[in-house]
């Protein structure tokens, strides 16, 4: 085909610039670009507009169309019922506790299984990904009797972390598995062991420092999950941030604080995930 030769020249030029050649003729590529930017614009608007609307609503003054920070200031002062600030506090504490417990529980187990009990890795993966298959609403039906027992000893909403670790398990596992797969754990541990290191040293001073990026990912995903969790807390009748927002929306006509608190949660979540993607990019750049 004669038409191919200028095309292939153009293609190799495109390749040199680093664009992805798709085996298309110039006309097709132009049409494709029109299509792409149309798609990006439409989807971008679809994703952005509800968020912007929420932020705009939270900045609404007393009259429609005016601007005011009142709703944002109300986040600290909202007295309820129920009050907002304790719910935020509980949620942040839950995020920390859940992350720590998840890490302490899952990371040593994963490294240990990788190094010593390889036959167990399929079972581990299955258990860790199982919560993706069992909806939270189903899990909570089975958790209710267990939480009845827990509440005999402790009625604090912080007890939610037991369930949240399970909900975070698939995300944390996948993040950690990606990190563990990217390093040669067996060789590292053999080297350390032959120099006399204990298993504890191997785990926490050899393997874990080499996958801090994955650990950070797992932590951020866990925090993001806890910040957005509603189902389990609501149905076990605990009050966390999302349950609080829900009851504000049901109890009051004063919608301002609802939208400002929602927008704040969202911005906090975005910030966390931006950190994640930024740190992730640094890792990728570090590799050949």
């Amino acid at each position, binding site marked *: 085909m004669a038409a191919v030769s200028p095309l292939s020249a153009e293609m190799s030029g495109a390749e040199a610039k680093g*664009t*992805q050649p*798709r*085996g*298309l003729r110039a006309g097709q590529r132009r049409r494709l670009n029109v299509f*792409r930017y149309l*798609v*990006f614009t439409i*989807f971008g608007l*679809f*994703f952005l507009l*509800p968020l912007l609307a*929420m932020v*705009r*609503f939270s900045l609404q003054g007393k009259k429609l169309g005016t601007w005011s920070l009142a709703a944002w200031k109300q986040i600290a002062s909202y007295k309820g019922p129920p009050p907002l600030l304790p719910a935020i506090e509980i949620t942040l504490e839950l995020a920390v506790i859940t992350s720590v417990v998840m890490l302490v*529980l899952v990371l040593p*187990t994963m490294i240990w*299984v990788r190094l*010593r*009990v390889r036959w*167990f890795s399929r079972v581990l993966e299955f*258990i860790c990904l199982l919560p*993706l*298959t*069992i909806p*939270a*609403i*189903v899990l*909570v*039906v*089975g958790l209710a009797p*267990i939480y009845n027992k827990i509440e005999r000893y402790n009625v604090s909403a912080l007890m939610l972390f037991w*369930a949240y*670790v399970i909900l975070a398990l698939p995300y944390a596992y996948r993040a950690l598995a990606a990190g563990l797969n990217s390093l040669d754990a067996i060789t590292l541990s053999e080297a350390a062991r*032959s*120099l*006399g*290191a*204990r298993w504890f040293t191997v785990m926490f001073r*050899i393997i874990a420092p080499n996958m801090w990026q994955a650990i950070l990912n797992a932590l951020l995903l866990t925090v*993001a*999950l806890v910040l*957005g969790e*509603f*189902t389990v807390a*609501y*149905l076990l009748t605990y009050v966390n941030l*999302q349950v609080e*927002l*829900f009851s504000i*929306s049901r109890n009051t006509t004063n*919608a301002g604080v*609802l*939208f400002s608190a*929602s927008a704040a*949660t*969202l911005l906090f*979540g975005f910030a966390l*995930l931006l950190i994640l*993607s930024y740190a992730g990019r640094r890792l990728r750049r570090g590799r050949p």
Partner: protein
Amino acid sequence: MTVAATAETGARPVRAGRRPPLAWVGTMPFLAYTGVFLLLPTGIVLWNAFRRPTGGFTLSNLSALNTSTVRSLFVGSLELCLICSVSGAVLGALLAYAIASGHPDGAIRRLYIAGSGVLAQFGGVTLAFAFLAAIGPTSGILFHAKWYYNFPWGIGLIYIYFQIPLMVLVFLPAIDGVKVQWREASENLGGSAWQYWRYVGGPLLAPAFLGAALLLFANALSAYATIVAWEDQIAYVVPQQISASMISEVGLINVNQADALALGMIVMVVILMTGYFLLQRRAARWQR
């Protein structure tokens, strides 16, 4: 590398030969935790679904599912999930194609992938509020949608908001796996764009597409927080009824109804996820 521990422990001989075969004990904390908070709750649901409130086994909980109310809930669930997973899958695939045909390390691609990661998780209460602020029937900033509280359409639109990003995340690797050479081969043989998609690209991507659509379906089926924040008075879908029968002290049919409904959901999700994994395995053949 951290090997400072060597000094403390001294050069110990490698004990490869006389390790006790008890390495699996290291997995016990993990197994105990997931046993109590993941496997036990699931077991409780399965067990209670077949139990009389007074004790003893029965199938009456399951036959109680066969009432017109419960049937309409399952139909409602299927309707909603079908609408938002089919449209989410199609639109998400379109967006994924637009992303994949651009620069592999470009800013748009990075933005959309990072954004998808955030938005796919961003369900829940806050999402419903964002849409309320944007298109709520009385408060909408963009416009006042009269159909906002109509059952499949209003909530379907909100669900699509997190279904599209999930589709992008799941389907993009499959599109990236399509090789330029296939397109070139097709064009060298005189194939048109239509013929390429009909006979090469389409069939290759079909298993990945269907698998991703099933995942979206399961995702919509399990979603609970969003629909409760959208409308908490009328039960349209199964998760709402589960929560209603959990919360109300006077069980609508009997106290084990929540367990029976949850069992129904487990069955549906297991079928969907099995289909997903089978199709993913089929699709993975071309992704090497």
